[in-house]
């Protein structure tokens, strides 16, 4: 395919104006030794039908499975209206709203996104998106370090391995000390440590699906002058107390379930909300409402002085291109859900998860890592190697869950199982039957 519009005549006219003989002359000032003296070693371009055949073929090498995996990315129902609105070419093919007068669409939707993220987190200051849930935690820690001037952070082991890794990688480069606090009975067991941390961070519900106590974290953090950071699951926010109302200083989230397909894990979107105290330390873009010369309301990027293009090495973050379109999807999905839809998704997922957990417990040799206290995700301990179980379940059409042993040696037979409202009773029952077979056969 060729997306350039140049005819031979155009090229001749343009080269003529430039006094050049051929397009090769456009590069004649390049030092000879760096100019490639051969064509790229790539196949010739494909025509559109062949491009589509190629994609179909790659896709056919993936096996569609009924999804019981979660760990941050969930198979919730994505309404058709959300996707079709999000994919409006005016959003898809524009860029960061540097010229607000012709970017009111993106800007207003981001303002609405911020407002709704503030609502579901109970924290008034939300930014216009970050890359994903993991980076959002890293950015929150970074902000806490800047706010407190302390070089340590306490992480709950209930944060997903991916999140902890993101923080550790960033912390290592910046000489921030990371202390992990263990899970006991599936919940974080905080303990006093030195040095005093910039922040305490937990996941709500945690990676094993368990609902944590905000109180435990907040009551420890506050007297120390540390920030309380919660990494929350947005689809539980219709059910659970908001982190803001529970006293957290920062709430971050992996926003994928809001308006974004699973997409093999990306693009997804990070949500970030905090208290008014930290507005000037906020990472990422922020949209504010203002007026034009005639008093007409309009939206602009604001507090730009925090950002890399102005503040350079002293910026609050290096983020430039972020996940705007995914944030727009989240905003539209939140509007689709409304308060009651959000609650309903959380409830139904939880009821279905509990139904499945109950049925799984009846299988020989199967037990729950933690009997209660979870919502739509839980850890189950199997009488066989979870990796093998996953492989055998895949042959039966199920993505059974995420094996836990590698990251949580204490749960060596553990499998993390997620259940969304999309799973029908029939699928749950079939899952149980298939697992029974696998256990019997193994």
């Amino acid at each position, binding site marked *: 395919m*060729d*997306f*350039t519009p140049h005819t031979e005549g155009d090229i001749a006219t343009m080269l003529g*104006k430039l006094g050049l003989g051929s397009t090769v002359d456009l590069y004649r000032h390049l030092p000879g*030794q*760096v100019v490639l003296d051969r064509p*790229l070693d790539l196949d010739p*371009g*494909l025509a559109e039908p062949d*491009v589509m055949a*190629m994609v179909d073929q790659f*896709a056919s090498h993936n*096996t*569609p499975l009924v999804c019981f995996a979660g760990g941050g990315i969930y198979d919730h129902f994505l*309404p058709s209206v959300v996707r079709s*609105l999000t*994919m409006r070419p*005016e*959003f*898809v093919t524009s*860029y960061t709203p540097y*010229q*607000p007068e*012709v970017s009111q*669409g993106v800007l207003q939707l981001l303002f609405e996104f911020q*407002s*709704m993220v503030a*609502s*579901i987190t109970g924290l008034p200051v*939300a930014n216009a998106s970050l890359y994903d849930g993991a980076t959002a935690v890293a950015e929150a820690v970074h902000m806490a370090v800047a706010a407190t001037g302390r070089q340590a952070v306490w992480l709950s082991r209930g944060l997903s391995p991916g999140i902890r890794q*993101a923080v550790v990688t960033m912390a290592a*480069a910046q000489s921030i000390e990371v202390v992990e606090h263990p899970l006991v009975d599936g919940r974080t067991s905080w303990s006093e440590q030195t040095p005093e941390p910039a922040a305490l961070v937990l996941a709500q519900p945690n990676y094993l699906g368990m609902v944590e106590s905000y109180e435990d974290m907040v009551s420890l953090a506050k007297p120390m002058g540390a920030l309380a950071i919660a990494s929350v699951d947005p689809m539980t926010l*219709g*059910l659970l*107390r908001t982190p803001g109302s529970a006293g957290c200083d920062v709430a971050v989230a992996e926003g994928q379930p809001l308006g974004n397909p699973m*997409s*093999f894990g990306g693009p997804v979107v990070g949500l970030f909300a905090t208290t008014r105290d930290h*507005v000037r330390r906020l990472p990422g873009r922020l949209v504010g409402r*203002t007026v*034009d*010369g005639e008093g007409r*309301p*309009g939206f*602009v990027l*604001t507090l730009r002085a925090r950002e890399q*293009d102005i503040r*350079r*090495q002293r910026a609050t*973050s290096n983020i430039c*291109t972020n*996940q*705007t*379109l995914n944030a727009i999807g989240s905003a539209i999905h939140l*509007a*689709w859900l409304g308060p*009651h839809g*959000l609650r309903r998704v959380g409830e139904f997922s939880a009821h279905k998860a*509990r139904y499945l957990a109950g049925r799984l417990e009846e299988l020989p040799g199967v037990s729950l890592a933690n009997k209660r206290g979870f919502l739509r995700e839980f850890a189950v301990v199997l009488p066989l190697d979870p990796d093998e179980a996953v492989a055998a379940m*895949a042959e039966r059409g199920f993505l059974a869950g995420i094996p836990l042993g590698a990251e949580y040696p204490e749960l060596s037979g553990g499998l993390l199982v997620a259940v969304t409202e999309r799973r029908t*009773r029939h699928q749950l029952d079939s899952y149980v039957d298939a697992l029974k077979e696998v256990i019997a056969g193994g």
Partner: protein
Amino acid sequence: MGDVGAGRASSAPLSGGDAEPTLRDLSSHGRRVWSLPELDVPSSDLGLPELAEAPPDLPEVSEHDLVMHVTRLAQRNFAVDLGAYPLGSCTMKYNPKVCDWAAEHPGFRDLHPETPAAMAQGALEVLLAAEEVLCEVTGMERATFQPPAGAAGEVTGLLIMRGWHSSQGDPRRVVLIPDSAHGTNPASVTLAGYETVEVPSDERGMVDVAALRAALDDQVAGLMLTNPNTLGLFEEDIGEITEAVHSVGGLVYYDGANLNAILGIARPGDMGFDIVHSNLHKTFATPHGGGGPGAGPVAVRESLVPFLPGPLPARGADGELRWEMPEHSIGRVHGNHGNFLVVLRALTYMRALGGDGMRRVAERAVLNARYLAELVRPEFDIPYDRPCMHEFVASARRLKQRNGVRAMDVAKALLDRGFHSPTVYFPLIVDEALMVEPTETQSRETVEALAAALLDIAGDDPDAVRASPVRTPVGRLDEGRAARTLDINWDSW
């Protein structure tokens, strides 16, 4: 007939009108869109300590209201699909629809990232195929697609740099960047735990090699460079530059934002770069999404492969693809596998172009920029006046002197003429900078129309130019007020 030039959005859709209410304004208690089947399992008491009494306060609207709201907002937004978008450094080229189709393929869209490799062979194949193309284009050995944007790629590349130096028992402190560099470069240097030292540009607009040499010592971990640089100029001393950095044990990082200019013409690897990020949302035509998602894959030369983030797809003896962690990997830099659907779009584009298509892209991107620069010369200075590559940086200083019209005024007046504006006030080393990148998908006619608009603005009544835009949904917005009032949430706070 047709008094709008080609490639130019009729300003109609964007001219003055009423404000769109917010979803909050449209909300009415009891309205709903959400639609879910009845619960088909027994419901149990959720009885948990942290349960909320009521759900959060979100808007309640009907599906039709939601559709009207978002559709109207969409029409208040300029886009590549509407007109020329010569935003320098951003490569706002046409985003092929066939790539949209690919990214909506259910076989990929509905794939969970924890799917075992055996059941996700197609996804791993996509990553590997895209990696092969990227490595051939950049002259590198292997690449990771985890970084979700260019800036994330920069940090990743710098962490690889740090990993390598550490492995040599020689951690270093400083990263050099030219004064013309993009803001993400120094910001990333900080995040990676290094210190930034700026290298000045010389009178040609290129790295001042002498100053560079002076800055080089055994604390220099490396140099970050964009080539063509942010002035749109090819760093002609590039061979000398990379050699100099290597000679003190440093590594050279290629900021690939401007790769579009040299696709199939020259390769960073052949110039001596060690680490290369590229922006799929620029060079490889994946759409910018109103500010993202993008993808900032990082490719490295052979010696650095063990430090790449992982896991990476690798083909086993049985022909199956599996995930493998590089030996000294800096670890994951994304929760999953990066912005996978963006990579899929890019691969679709890469394969549609093929090798000769890539070269054609570069040549025509450069031709358009060079031609446009030539056409606007009568009214706009080009301070570093050498043959430009895919973009050029003009200065509105003559206008400013003549009648106080500034670069930002020119930008706003372009909006009224149906075009997006160039990047303004960047790079910082040019006074009243207008950084213009037409890209290769604009036609000669559009380039000429854009030039005509710029010349027209230069000759227009300065008061009118300063009062622009007037044909957009809103006029110039009060940014100071925005920062003072911080009305960033529809609830007062």
